C-alpha cells in the first residue's frame, strides 16, 4: 500500500496532521494514476441492462460510511445513470462495509477502498462525491472536493459554525461546482405541499411558523484516553481533521462524537433544525434572508423575520416519541407547522398532512412516501450535475438556513435576545455574539484553499 500522506519536508509532531497542501494536487493526481482498474467490465458498466451509457453516467465516490452514509448510498445506488466506484473511510470496518455494499449492488468487485479522501479527489474519472462523514468534516471535505473539481452532495449540517458555511458557500462558487446539502425534506411531496399552501396564500397571510428541534445540549468534556489503534484500523489523526486535538476514545469514531462541542456545532440544534428551520425559510420565501431577531425561552427559540412572520423553534423533550402538545405525534419526526390567518397546515416524516378545520375539506392530500427518503433529493442532485442547474438545497440556500440555525442556537447559548444583520452576516452591536462566528482549525487544515 502506498503512503497515505506525502512525506513531510519538515519535522511534524505525531499529534499534528501531516498532509502537505502544496503537494496536494501532485499527490492526488499520482494517487489517481495508481487506481486499480477492474479486470472484468460487466454489462451494466457498458450501458446495457438498463443502465446509462458511460458517457452519460455520473461517476461518484463516497466519503464517510457511517449509518447515514449507508442510508444515502442505499437510496442512490439504484440510480441507473450513476455509478459508485470508490469509497473512503478512516475506519477499516466501515470502508469494507461500503465496498461490500457497492460490489453487491453491481455484482462485481470493482469498488476501490481508500483511507485517504485525497485519493478520491485525485481520480479524474470521478465526477462527484457523496460526503457523509462526521459533522466536523463536512465543510472541509466539501471544500477540498470542489477544489479538486468534484460536485458535492454533503450531508447536513454542512458546517459547525457560521464561518464554516460561509467558507463552504464561497468555495463552491469559487470553483464553479454543483452542491447539494442533504436537507432532503425539500424534495419530499408532503413537505412541498405544506410549503405550497403557505406560499400560495391558501393559508391566508402567513404569520407564524413552527420548527421542531431537539432540546439543545453539548459537552466540552473529553472522554477518557484510550490507546490509539493503528492508522489502518482507525486513522485518528485524520478522523480529527480540522478539529482541535484530544486523546483517542473509540466512542467518538463510532457515533459518540455527537454532543461534543468540537465535533458537533450549535449544540445539536441543526440535527433537526437544518431541516425544519430550512422548511420554514422556504415556506416564508426567505431563502435569501433569515430572521433578524432571536430570543430563547424555556420551551424554544422565537425568531422574527423582517416581514413580521414569527418563527418558533420548539424544543421537543421526546422527539422520537410523544411530540404533543406542540405537534401531532402522528405526523412523525421533524414536524413543521405553518399558520396563516385563514388556516394552518402541519406535516412531518410520516407524510401525513394535518390541516385546520377551515381547510381540511378542500385541501386534504395523502402522501404515502415517508418524508425521510433521500432518493428524490439525490436525483435532483444528479440531474443538476448534468444540467449545471442549482439544486433545490444549493450552497446559497444552505448558507442562509444554516446561519439562521446558528443564530437561533446562539440566543439560547447566550441566554438573551440577539439581533442579526443578514446582509453583513454579523450580529448587530454585539461583540460577544460575533466572537462565536468562527473557530480556528487545526493545522494544516484550512477552509480557505
Amino acid at each position: 500500500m502506498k503512503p497515505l500522506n506525502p512525506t513531510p519536508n519538515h519535522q511534524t509532531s505525531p499529534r499534528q496532521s501531516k498532509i502537505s497542501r502544496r503537494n496536494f494536487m501532485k499527490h492526488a493526481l499520482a494517487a489517481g494514476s495508481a487506481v486499480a482498474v477492474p479486470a472484468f467490465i460487466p454489462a451494466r458498466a457498458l450501458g446495457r441492462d438498463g443502465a446509462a451509457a458511460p458517457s452519460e453516467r455520473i461517476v461518484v465516490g463516497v466519503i464517510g460510511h457511517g449509518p447515514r452514509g449507508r442510508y444515502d448510498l442505499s437510496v442512490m445506488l439504484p440510480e441507473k445513470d450513476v455509478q459508485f466506484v470508490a469509497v473512503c473511510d478512516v475506519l477499516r470496518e466501515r470502508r469494507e462495509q461500503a465496498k461490500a455494499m457497492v460490489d453487491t449492488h453491481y455484482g462485481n468487485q470493482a469498488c476501490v477502498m481508500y483511507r485517504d479522501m485525497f485519493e478520491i479527489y485525485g481520480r479524474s474519472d470521478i465526477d462527484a462525491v457523496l460526503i457523509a462523514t462526521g459533522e466536523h468534516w463536512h465543510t472541509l471535505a466539501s471544500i477540498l472536493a470542489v477544489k479538486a473539481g468534484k460536485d458535492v452532495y454533503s450531508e447536513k449540517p454542512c458546517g459547525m459554525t457560521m464561518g464554516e458555511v460561509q467558507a463552504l458557500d464561497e468555495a463552491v462558487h469559487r470553483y464553479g461546482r454543483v452542491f447539494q446539502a442533504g436537507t432532503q425534506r425539500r424534495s419530499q411531496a408532503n413537505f412541498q405541499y405544506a410549503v405550497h399552501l403557505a406560499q400560495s396564500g391558501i393559508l391566508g397571510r402567513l404569520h407564524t411558523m413552527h420548527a421542531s428541534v431537539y432540546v439543545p445540549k453539548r459537552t466540552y468534556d473529553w472522554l477518557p484516553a484510550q490507546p490509539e489503534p493503528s492508522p489502518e484500523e482507525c486513522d485518528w489523526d485524520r478522523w480529527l481533521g480540522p478539529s482541535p486535538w484530544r486523546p483517542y476514545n473509540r466512542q467518538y469514531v463510532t457515533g459518540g462524537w455527537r454532543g461534543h462541542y468540537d465535533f458537533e456545532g450549535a449544540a445539536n440544534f441543526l440535527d433537526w433544525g437544518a431541516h425544519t428551520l430550512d422548511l420554514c425559510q422556504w415556506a416564508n420565501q426567505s431563502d435569501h434572508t433569515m430572521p433578524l431577531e432571536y430570543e430563547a425561552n424555556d420551551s424554544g427559540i422565537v425568531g422574527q423575520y423582517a416581514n413580521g412572520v414569527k418563527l418558533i423553534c420548539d424544543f421537543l423533550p421526546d422527539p422520537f416519541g410523544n411530540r404533543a402538545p406542540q405537534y401531532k405525534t402522528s405526523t412523525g419526526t421533524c414536524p413543521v407547522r405553518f399558520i396563516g390567518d385563514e388556516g394552518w397546515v402541519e406535516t412531518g416524516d410520516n407524510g401525513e398532512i394535518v390541516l385546520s378545520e377551515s381547510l381540511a375539506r378542500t385541501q386534504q392530500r395523502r402522501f404515502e412516501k415517508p418524508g425521510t427518503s433521500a432518493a428524490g433529493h439525490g436525483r435532483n442532485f444528479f440531474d443538476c450535475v448534468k444540467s449545471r442547474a442549482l439544486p433545490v438545497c444549493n450552497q446559497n440556500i444552505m448558507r442562509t438556513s444554516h446561519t439562521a440555525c446558528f443564530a437561533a442556537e446562539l440566543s439560547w447559548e447566550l441566554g438573551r435576545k440577539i439581533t442579526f444583520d443578514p446582509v453583513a452576516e454579523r450580529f448587530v452591536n454585539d461583540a460577544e455574539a460575533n466572537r462565536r462566528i468562527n473557530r480556528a482549525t487545526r493545522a494544516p487544515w484550512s477552509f480557505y484553499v
Partner: protein
Amino acid sequence: MAAPVISMGAASNTQAWIEILQSERPLFEKARACQQLGEAGTSEAVPALAALLNHDMLSVYARTGLERIPGPEAAAALRDALATTQGTLKIGVIQSVAALCDEEAVPALSGLTRGSDAAVASAAMLALGRIASDQAVTFVMQALTSGPPEHRPDAAAACLLAAQHQLSQKKAESAAALYDAVLKAKVPASYHIGATRGAILSRTQDRIAFLVKQLRSQDPAIRDVAILTVRQNPSEAFADALNAEIQNAPAGLQSKMIGALIDCHNAQSLPIIRAKAVSEEAQVRMAALNVLSRIGGPDDAPTLIKVLLDNQGPEEVSLAMSILEQIGGPETDAMILKALSSATTSSVRIELIRLLGKRSATSATDELLHQAGDPDQAVSIAALQALRSLASPEDLPRLIWLTRQCTVESVRDAAANAVYSVCKDHPPVGPSGALILKALKAANVTAEKQAWIRVLSLLGYSDALPFMTATLQDADPDLVQSTISSLGRWPDPSPINALFQVVESHANATVRSRALVAVLQLATRAADQTLTDHDDLLAWFQRAGKAVQSVQEKRLLISGLGRVNHVESVRMLSSYLDDADVKAEAVYAIVNAAGPLAKGPDYKTVEAVLKKIPAVQDPRLRDQIAGLERDIKATRARLDNE
C-alpha cells in the same frame, strides 16, 4: 431548559483562566480555558495564549482564543509568532493571521512563501490570497505570472481567493485581472473552471463575447461552467447570447442551454425552445419538452401536437401529453380534434383520444362517437372510455346503438360502462333507464342482455326489477347467474326477497350459493347505509344464516352482522367463536357490533360474550376489548346507582 449562561468577560475571569494556562493543570482544563478566553476573555490573556502557540496539542485552542479576542494585541502576537513557530504549528499561526485579515503581516507572509518549507510557503500564499489587500493581491499575481513554477498552483488558488474578495468589494477590474492570470497559467483544470466563472462575472465590457467564447470551447468542463454561471446569474444579456448561440451548438450543449434559458426568463427564448421541441436530436427535444412542461401555454399546442404525431418514443409522448392536459382553451381542443381526424397510426389516435378525455373536451363528443365505431378495437375502447365523462344524455341513443352493434366482449363492456357513466352522472335515472330497459327487452344475445342487466342493476332502475326477477327463471343458466350477481349490486335491498326465493328453492346448488352471496351483499350494504330497521336486517341475516355453508359465506354473514349494533347480532356472532375457520373474524365483528351495547342495558350479554373470546394477539383489538370492558364496568356502576 435555558442554556447555562456563560459568565462574561470580567477581568477576574480572564485572570482565572490565565492562571489555568500557566499552571500544571491537565491539558483538558487548559484547552477549555483557551475556549473560554475566546468567548469572553480580554486582551490581558494574549501573552498567555501566545505562549501556547508552540504547544503541539494546545496551539489550536490558543489560536481560537487569539482569533476571537478583540483588539490589536492578538494580531500582533500572532504576527510575532510567525517568526517563532515551525512546521505545522507555523501553518496554524499563518491561518490565524489570515483569519484576522492582518494586512500588517503581508510582508512577513510574502517572505514565508520563499522559504524552504513547502507546506509553510503554501499556507502563506493562500493566506495572502485570503487577506487580499492591494499589496497581497499584487504579490500573489506576481507569484502566479512570474514566480517559480512550483508555486503556481498555490498562487492560482490564492488569486482565486483574492479575486473573489475583490469581486465582493465591487473591484471588478482587479478581480478580472486575477481571473485572467489564472486562466493563462499552467495549473490544474479545476482552477481554470473556477477562474472561467469568475472571469465571466467580473467582466464589465466584453462579458458576453467572453461567455460565447467559453460556450464554444472544446473543453466540455469549460462549457459546463459557462452554463452554470448563466444559470446562477441569469440576465437578459446572457439570454440574448444563448438565443443566438444555441442554433450552432452541439446537441449536448443545446440541451443544457435550454435549461439555462428558462432560468433567464427571456421572452425571445420561447420560440427558440418551442422549435427545439421538434429538433432532430432526442436529447434536445426532451430538454425543450421539459422546459415547456414548466412554462407551456396555448401557443405551444401546435408544437406539442406535432410531438404526438411524430411519436418519437413513449417518454416524449407522455411528456407532451401531460403538458397538453394542462393547457386550457377550446382552440387547443380544436387542434387536437383536427389532428385526430388526420392521424393514421393507432397508437397516436389512442393518445389523442385519451388527451381529449383528460381535457374534458365536450366539443369532441361527436368525433369520439365516430371513433367509438372504429374497427380497431383499441381505438374504439379508448373512445368509449373518453365518452364516459364527455357524453351527455342526448348521446345515449347513439351509445346504446353502439353497444348493441358490438360483437367483441371488451368493446361491449366499454360501451355499456359509458352508458352507465352517462346515466349516473346525469340524474334522474328514469328517462335513461327506460331507454336501456327497452334495449334489454329487445336484446336477443345473452351477452347483450347481461350488459344491460348489469347497467340497470348498478343504476337501481326500479321499473326494470320485475323484468329482471323474471329473468331468474330463465332457462339459460349463464344469464341467471349473471343476473343474480348484478342484482347483488343493486343500490338498495329491493331485490332481496326475489333472491331469497332462489336461495331457498332453486334446484342448482351453485345458483343457490351465488344468490346467497348476493343476498348478503345487499343486506350488508343496507346495514352500512343505516336506512333499514335492525329488525329487518336481523331477519335477513337470520334467514341467510340458515343457508350458509362455505367459509366464504360465513365470512360474509359475519361481516354483515358486525355492522348491526344489536344484542341479537352479538348472540348470533358468538355462535361462531367455536368455529376454527371464522373465529378470528367473529371476534372483530363482535367488538364492532358491541360498542354501543356496552354502554346500555344489554351490557351483561356483551360481558358474557366477551368472556368467551379467547386470548387475542392483535394489540389494537386487545385495546378495543379492554375499552369495552371499561365501558361495561362504568355502565354497571351507573345502572346500579340508578
